[in-house]
């Protein structure tokens, strides 16, 4: 039994300690917004925030997040920066199939929370762990810049 705080709620998860957070979120807690893409921290589709840091949930055992605060795509809109990122994504029509975009939004939010005006090189570095097979990168880059320029809270 592992106690995990997800999106402000405490859950007791009755799974082996080495179960990746990803599968606890998706299969046990029903939070399917966090996606499975590779299982090896290679694609970023499963990115969540653990104590504010972007983390790949597919390689993070639940035992490692006991006592930590996990935030997923379902609740990132509760954060002003997260909300601005979501608004920019919708406004610029970033998603195509959309499957990777939860991870992209989480990674972009983490970037903008520490750096409101990232350079192209900083965007490359922060976002290159997140694969988009539809190829939405040019719009992701622009949306990050737009969200960074927006006043958090003022965004839709």
């Amino acid at each position, binding site marked *: 039994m592992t106690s995990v705080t997800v999106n402000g709620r405490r859950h007791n998860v009755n799974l082996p300690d080495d179960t990746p957070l990803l599968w606890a979120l998706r299969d046990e807690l029903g939070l399917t917004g966090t996606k499975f893409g*590779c299982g090896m921290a290679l694609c970023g589709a499963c990115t969540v925030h653990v104590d504010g840091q972007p983390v790949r949930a597919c390689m993070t055992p639940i035992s490692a997040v006991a006592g930590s605060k996990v935030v997923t795509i379902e609740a990132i809109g509760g954060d002003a920066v997260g909300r601005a990122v979501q608004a920019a994504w919708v406004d610029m*029509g970033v998603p*195509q199939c959309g499957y990777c975009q939860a991870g992209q939004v989480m990674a972009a939010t983490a970037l903008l929370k520490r750096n409101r005006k990232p350079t192209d090189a900083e965007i490359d570095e922060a976002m290159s762990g997140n694969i988009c097979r539809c190829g939405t990168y040019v719009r992701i880059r622009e949306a990050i810049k737009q969200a960074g320029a927006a006043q958090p809270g003022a965004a839709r």
Partner: protein
Amino acid sequence: MSARRPDVSPVESRPGAEPPVVIANISRVGISRRRFLQGAGALGGLVLAAGFPSASHAADPPKYGADGMPNGWVDDPLVFVAIGEDGIVTIVCHRSEMGQGVRTGMPMIVADELEADWKRVRVKQATGDEKRFGNQDTDGSRSTRHFFHPMRRCGAAARTMLEGAAAAKWGVPVSEVAAKNHEVVHAKSGRRASYGSLAKAAAAQPVPARDTVRLKDPAQFRYIGKGQLKLVDGRDIVTGKAQYGIDTRLPGMLYAVVARPPVYGGKMASYDAGETLKVAGVVKVVEIDQSPAPAQFNPLGGVAVVATNTWAAIQGRNALKVVWNDGPNGSYDSAEFKASMEESARKPGKVVRNDGNLDTDMAAAARRVEAEYYIPHLAHASMEPPAATVRIVNGKAEVWACVQSPQATRDLVAKRLGLSAADVTVNVTLLGGGFGRKSKPDFAVEAAVVSKAMGGKPVKVTWTRDDDLTHDYFHTVSVEYLEGGLDAQGKPIAWLHRSVAPTLFSTFVDGAKNEHALELGMGVINVPFDIRSVRIENPDAIAHTRIGWFRSVSNIPHAFAVQSFVAELAAAAGRDPKDYLLEVIGPARRVSPGTLGDTWNHGESPERYPVDTGRLRRVVETAAREAGWGRSMPKGRGLGIAAHYSFVSYVAAVVEAAVDEQGVVTIPRIDIAVDCGATVNPDRVRAQMQGAAVMGVGIATLSQVSFKSGRAEQENFDTYEVTRMAGAPREIHVHIIPGDYGQPMGGVGEPGVPPVPPPLCNAIFAATGKRIRTLPIRDQLKA
């Protein structure tokens, strides 16, 4: 407008998408639906949605476009539109959403003709039922070009019914009323009635006959062609609410992963699940029978591990001990196969097009140039791997799956379970990428088999990434040999192209070893060049793995070879590559595909869809102009150009490549010009071209699947590399050639990919003098 709610997916969670629909007792009069129940001819009932002209009924006139597809099209407003008393308009989307924007675009067409206020439109996804909805095979870049007119008529018919209801209510001639922005207005009296208030009476109106339906003047379009509407699913996507196939959750659901034969055609000799069953959460193992070769859309067989969560199922599979008999494909080796294809490409093969007198002109040529190009197998690698859930209750099966082919899914699940198709419901979720992989519903059949073995309990089968990459329906592998003869002025007078590639039909017809008309018509025979002697040959090639269609299909290797070779000829002739390309295309003319030996023409009428070299020239000229072709470049930078006609659209790209001293390639800019005719949602056309540019760059620079001992060697994104943010083109400028709504439309989802790898390699040649003929580039430029 419908008497009942349209057939929709219950797993959907669209906010406010449950309108109270009050319309009742509508008899379906007035519209005689056209359906063309047509098998796929030679493939014996297989629903390979290739849009072949009917071969089985030689006396019938050939059918093209949507008419030629299984189950044709439907334009019945009773099927696609429902209006509630609250004024909410629900529009059914019957094509699968995989990122192309069809759930926005298709309803947008209906809503525009309906004069509906988009804010009060909800979109519902159709279940798999082609007799009801018309063809649902979402591939071949067909949705918009096949359903633009049916969906317009559908919206216009519903609008006519609302107008009729209002006119009757007010006792005025119907000619005096007009629908506008979700209400009907009688201008003379100033009376207005909302759609919600008219819904019930409108439903009692007869459905107007098709030929009486008045369509809008395109100048009056409010959504079509504007690109102002946000994506229907955009908000759900960025808030984690969007439901993909892998996200299905049902009460009491079990989770399964499958151990499949690692070699195509291999069989399971024995297995030991002792350790598997000790894994916490594992419930059972279930054998999945292997169907006889060729695979078609059937499961590959193996053992499913069923558990109470996905991770337990994966752990259980890791503990499984299976002995496989690899069979004859156990020696498949990509390096050896490449050598054997090269050998074939250097000898004459089956002649598939022969114009002029190639041997004479080649012998008379002042200069001959030859080159050989290679593109490896590719995996679709959609970010959402295949996943499907099946539940069987009282002899009725329900499927939730991310499929491009809901009707084929329904038919195959029914067949496997021994049910009638009527007892199978296929709920189409969002697709986390498709690219052709999810046209093949083998994974849904696996879920059906396992659910049945579990007494009908809901079972979700999830493919892990290694499953996806090692058991794909792979893009073919190809060697393209080209030889050109130039006259004294450098103009090509002889063109020989030998294309060697296992055909995707090998997955459906045992022993198929030549490219099908469908593949030949993807840019190898239907090249409309102004060259007097052309011979195209197709030497045999045997498939040793499961081949399938991958976004753009054979256009990728064909365009890479053809458009690289044109640039090579330009270099040999000492000419500017853009000017030379235009000369090779020749003057503007409309070429009948049949004269090029193309009997397929993407399933479209050769009269309505000739190969228009004027349009091809125009995209070349547009891309070149917008990219600043001819501008001076710093050292290590170059521009390359290419153009390709596919899916009845014309696309040209100019790539700017920078190669540093270590041989690392970056792409500062791509200009891509597209002529797909008139557009419904230009923003999505732009998005598709941007995405195609990125995928094309990945194909050129990084991606490959190789086989050793019959096994695919790449198991995850560390070895099957795809474009990431840092390697993506920094700028992608899309230039859409304006179209006319009275003219036929072209495809959008696929035609952007083929013309991207060749101009990248042409740009690298301009930058460095090095010619890349083997993809991916990877470290070929490393110093």
